[in-house]
């Protein structure tokens, strides 16, 4: 039985009927890679599933329950990583992570440190984020993602601005998350090095219908 299933997803963006009747299922412990040319609706799909964008129509089922994409419990179980890493530039990375995670669950400062170490951001954890490079900020965002421990990950181009080592980090975080029985939907062209039974691909073509 699938953890997450989407049926009859229609989305309009201004004039364009971007997603037409999209439908797919993601079993537990599996990563669905969303691929397609730019502007075909990858980001739109993730934002709709995160409840940030209201679709024309959608039948979303999570853990066997039919819910609206703005259901608070559903949100508590998901993490959305968008284009911007959601960090306040006047705060240090540690302060940012403890706020972003603390908004959802109780978190101790040791956990924050271990998260920053896990993503290799420990060395610059006390400098304000303003002084960090885009790649370093992306790592800090990954620290919050990893520490929150939500079961559903919605990742939009998670490896942008990351060097090769960073891309390896993303792949290992995803593999670790899937091993815990988590779920990932990632809009990325990167090869995540996942065995075929753990990874499916959703191609959004020009007509916006699932391939």
């Amino acid at each position, binding site marked *: 039985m699938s953890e997450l299933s989407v049926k009859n997803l229609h989305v*309009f*963006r*201004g*004039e364009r*009927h971007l997603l037409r009747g999209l439908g797919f299922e993601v079993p537990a412990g599996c990563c669905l890679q969303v691929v397609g040319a730019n502007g075909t609706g990858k980001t739109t799909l993730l934002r709709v599933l995160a409840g940030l964008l*209201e679709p024309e129509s959608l039948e979303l089922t999570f853990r066997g329950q039919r819910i609206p994409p703005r259901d608070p419990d559903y949100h508590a179980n998901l993490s959305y990583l968008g284009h911007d890493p959601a960090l306040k530039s006047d705060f240090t990375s540690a302060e940012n992570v403890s706020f972003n995670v603390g908004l959802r669950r109780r978190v101790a400062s040791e956990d924050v440190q271990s998260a920053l170490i896990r993503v290799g951001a420990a060395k610059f954890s006390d400098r304000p984020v303003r002084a960090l490079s885009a790649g370093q900020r992306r790592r800090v965002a990954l620290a919050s993602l990893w520490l929150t421990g939500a079961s559903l990950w919605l990742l939009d181009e998670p490896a942008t601005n990351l060097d090769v080592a960073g891309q390896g980090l993303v792949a290992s975080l995803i593999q670790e998350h899937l091993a815990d029985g988590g779920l990932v939907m990632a809009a990325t062209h990167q090869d995540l090095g996942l065995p075929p039974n753990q990874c499916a691909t959703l191609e959004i073509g020009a007509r916006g219908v699932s391939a």
Partner: protein
Amino acid sequence: MNWTWFHRLGSPPHIYRIAGTLTPWFAWPAGLLIAAALYGGLVLAPPDYQQGEGFRILYVHAPSAWLAVMIYGVMASAAAVGLIWRMKVAHAVAASCAGVGAWFTAVSLLTGMLWGKPMWGTYWVWDPRLTAQLILLFLYLGYMGLRAGIDDLGRADKASAVLAIVGVVNIPIIRYSVEWWNSIHQAPSVMKMDRPSMPFDMLAPLLMMLLGFTLYFAAVMLVRLRAEILRRERTASWIREVLR
């Protein structure tokens, strides 16, 4: 109890057709009523013992003022229906109301000023009702400004709907506060006339004019509604037959 009639209300092609057939049924009676009320108000009704012939401005001022407030109410309720049941047609109705409402708020202000001049010697008098209408005009302009400021039609509908609802909650508060403000400063009040204990031959034209204006608004709104529906339905197939 299935709400088929309610869902049919929500289906754009259905509403587009109904709007088309209803428009003349509103337009013609409106025209007749306004004409009759004009004749009644300008010719038959006796002059006011205090304001003489000048009081006849009432026959255009009061209906415009009524329209200004009534339209905002229609706009806000359509916006609420649009937000709660996610009906695009309801947002289209709200969008069709704003322009007409702003126009007639301006008319009620201008006619109020033209009435104030002979009565009080100055064009603008801080009469509570005139002041409240002025603020209502700013609410309309704010609504239209917000709609114009957002490119995506769907988002503009929803954002302006929230503003319309916040606005309609505030209108009675603004009216009360302006009346309260007027009472503590004993400022002059022009509009003693519109709580009419008027004789019937004065009152009848006014009521006819009010109804005529309301029907007129309905007719104009329905035409704009058809335009708004076409803008929102974009490439829906039913539009092809309509265009033929």
